[in-house]
């Protein structure tokens, strides 16, 4: 019945140790179930003890009452004296409790002791009421005795007396009856408790079986299989299955991204390396020192470019990692925007581009990741600068503008370059798509922008700048509840 989900051979030593230390869900379930059942059974048995005693008393008190009434019937006033003639049948009634001793006393409040046991002085626990029979337990002659007690008036025309009858019977038959009732009832209770415990054990096994099935399904998979689990499981474990499937999907995506990244990196590094090699060969084969010097200059420039590319790749890796691992937090959008503007103002000027920042807001709170936003802005600005400053002799502008709309913040990066053809606008966010190969670029910057924006649930649009050029327009949701909190 007790199925281990995994045979211990499949576990390494650490896992075995952990398994040994780990608390068992099933054990807890069974233990708590058994405790509850034991407590209930204990209460039930306790009640049965009381009840069976009451029941035995009820039955035997009837005998006692009947015997006492028969005695009472044979008490009369004769010549103003109380006379008692105990009928044989009264004690035949008591003899039904065959092993029990009998004690009795009849006395008159006026005349004193009449018959029975002279030293039997028993007072009922309750205030005596005339003509009302009382039953109570009291110790007498070294044994616990059940007494019936009755006081009543005897009257005839000349006189009146109060007569008191006490009739007692030891409790042997009562205890015997009570214990036989109790024994049977306790047997039943214990049986029920055992059945309940067995059901709990079987139930715990059945309840945990779907978990084991999920376990087996995962354990039996071939390496690298991250497809969703398809086995049928009950509602209770459905969420677990879905969670595992989601987790595996994320893992799959991460793996894919890693693969993409590796491919990107290889792609990005191959071209500059090839041109480096060509330049180096050129330098080696050239005999003239001037040409060699020129080739070496080219090699240095190419190295700079390679270094930039590696930085970009690193940033992309960091961004991708952050997007996977960091939660979005409330942040001021203006901080990364101003930072990237500040960073690019001087390099842009070197390329003949005047970068300006237009914003009338003091702060702009959104839910996001600062580093990723900054990377996005850098890419957008670099992109704008690169495409507007290309082969232009006169100075041009790139404007970064932030506006507040009703539900969103709008960021615009405006350049006055050549613009992007309508049919290309759809493709610029594709990986390695480069609109123009005469302009240096990696082809991954905008796809990274798109990734970041998707992650922030933001929207990007490419518009045409008038008279010419391109405007990248990003709409990002405001942090709505944050404002409410202020």
């Amino acid at each position, binding site marked *: 019945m007790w199925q281990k989900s995994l045979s211990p051979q499949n576990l390494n030593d650490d896992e075995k140790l952990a398994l040994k230390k780990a608390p068992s869900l099933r054990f807890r379930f069974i233990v708590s179930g058994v405790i509850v059942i034991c407590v209930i059974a204990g209460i039930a048995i306790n009640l049965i003890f009381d009840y069976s005693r009451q029941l035995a008393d009820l039955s035997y008190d009837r005998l006692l009452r009947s015997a006492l009434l028969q005695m009472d019937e044979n008490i009369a006033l004769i010549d103003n004296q109380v*006379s*008692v*003639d*105990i*009928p*044989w049948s*009264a*004690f*035949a009634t*008591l*003899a039904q409790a*065959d*092993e*029990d*001793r*009998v*004690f009795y006393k*009849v006395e008159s409040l006026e005349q004193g002791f*009449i*018959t*029975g*046991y002279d030293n039997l002085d028993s007072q009922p626990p309750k205030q005596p009421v005339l003509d009302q029979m009382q039953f109570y337990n009291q110790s007498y*002659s*070294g*044994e616990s005795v059940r007494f019936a007690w009755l006081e009543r008036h005897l009257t005839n025309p000349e006189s009146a007396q109060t007569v008191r009858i006490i009739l007692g019977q030891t409790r042997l038959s009562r205890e015997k009856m009570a214990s036989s009732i109790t024994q049977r009832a306790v047997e039943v209770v214990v049986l029920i408790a055992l059945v309940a415990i067995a059901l709990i054990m079987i139930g715990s096994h059945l309840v945990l079986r779907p978990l084991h099935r999920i376990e087996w399904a995962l354990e039996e998979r071939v390496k690298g299989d991250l497809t969703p689990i398809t086995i049928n499981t009950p509602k209770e474990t459905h969420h677990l299955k879905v969670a595992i499937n989601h987790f595996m999907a994320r893992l799959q995506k991460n793996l894919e991204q890693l693969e993409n990244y590796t491919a990107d990196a290889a792609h990005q590094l191959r071209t500059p390396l090839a041109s480096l090699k060509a330049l180096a060969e050129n330098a080696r084969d050239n005999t003239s020192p001037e040409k060699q010097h020129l080739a070496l200059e080219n090699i240095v420039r190419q190295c700079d470019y390679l270094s930039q590319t590696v930085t970009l790749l690193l940033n992309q890796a960091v961004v991708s990692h952050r997007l996977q691992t960091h939660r979005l937090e409330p942040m001021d959008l203006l901080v990364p925007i101003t930072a990237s503007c500040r960073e690019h103002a001087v390099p842009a000027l070197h390329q003949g581009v005047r970068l300006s920042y237009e914003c009338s807001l003091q702060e702009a709170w959104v839910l996001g990741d600062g580093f990723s936003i900054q990377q996005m802005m850098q890419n957008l600005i670099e992109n704008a600068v690169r495409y507007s400053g290309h082969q232009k002799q006169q100075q041009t502008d790139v404007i970064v503008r932030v506006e507040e709309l009703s539900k969103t913040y709008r960021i615009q990066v405006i350049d006055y370059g050549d613009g992007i053809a309508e049919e290309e606008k759809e493709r610029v966010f594709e990986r390695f798509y480069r609109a123009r190969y005469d302009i240096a670029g990696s082809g991954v910057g905008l796809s990274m922008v798109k990734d970041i924006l998707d992650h922030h649930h933001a929207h990007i649009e490419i518009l045409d700048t008038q008279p010419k050029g391109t405007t990248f327009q990003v709409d990002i949701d405001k942090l709505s509840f944050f404002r409410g909190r202020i």
Partner: protein
Amino acid sequence: MKAWLTIIMCFGLSLAWAESPTVWFGKKNASRVLVINSALDLTSFEPILQDFVAQYPDVRVAYRDVNTLELYYLTIEEQSSPVASLAISSAMDLHFKLVNDGYARTYQSSLTDNLPQDFKWRDQLFAFSLEPIVMLVNKDAFPGPLPEDRQSLLQTIRQHGQAMTKRIGTYDIRQSGVGYLLASQDARQADLTWGRLLEAFGSHDVQTYCCTHNIIDDVADGKLVLGYNLLGSYASQRAKDDDRLKMILPKDFTLMLMRAALIPKNAPNPQDAGLFIDFLLSDRAQKMMQEQGLLFPIHPDVKNTDDPFVVSAPGPTGIIELDQQLLVGRDYAKQQRFIRNWEIAFEIQREE
């Protein structure tokens, strides 16, 4: 009344001690001594005691013959340090009352466990014989046909008043515990007949005795023509050897009486007392009672129907039950009234 009974008791006690000294059975150098207080005539009991000490040579038995009523008061008086470890009586009611009032101790063995529930109470009181209560007549001296039952006895008394006067013997119920028990049971079984008998006995000057064997002696001698309510075992024993005597089981109803034993609460030697009870209940002793004509065993061997120690009553039998009803007969008020009525019936006649 109570005080009066106590005086009787003290008087009787000293008398008993004077009259019946202790009889010893067994070897003098036996390591253990079992003292038995018993209301059983030694003639019926001696062979059983002899056999017991023969089987258990370590035990020496001291046997003290005590009247049933004396035995009752003696047991109460000696309750804290009794001399005897076993009390045997035919007065079932007094023995029952001793157990009810807490003067006995519990004993249990395989033999007592096998004893039917009707023959024991609380594992403290054990009956070992069941005998009929009979009339014993002197065939030669009895006037008219021998009586079959109480009615025909009454008729004979009426018809032969002169011949019956002073010639019927029965127990003095004030002195004999078993006598009182039998009289009260008679009254219970047939109240009307008892009334008439009492009246007839009183008007014909019935002789009263303390003990069975005195009545039997006088019946045998012809001093009495009839003994009423006698213990069957003694009557049967004597009738067997004496042609003049005839034992009659009344046809209207025959009372059946048990003899019972108990171990007093603080008995000095309860182990051997238990041993003796086991011996009395054993097949060997029960068989001995029947075969040697000593007592009526509880379960007689009924193969031999001519055996005088197998009860073959002509009419119904009324077994005096060993239960709480016995206490009613010994109820203080009832007992007082019963004895007073008995005295009135007898004394009125004496005055005349």
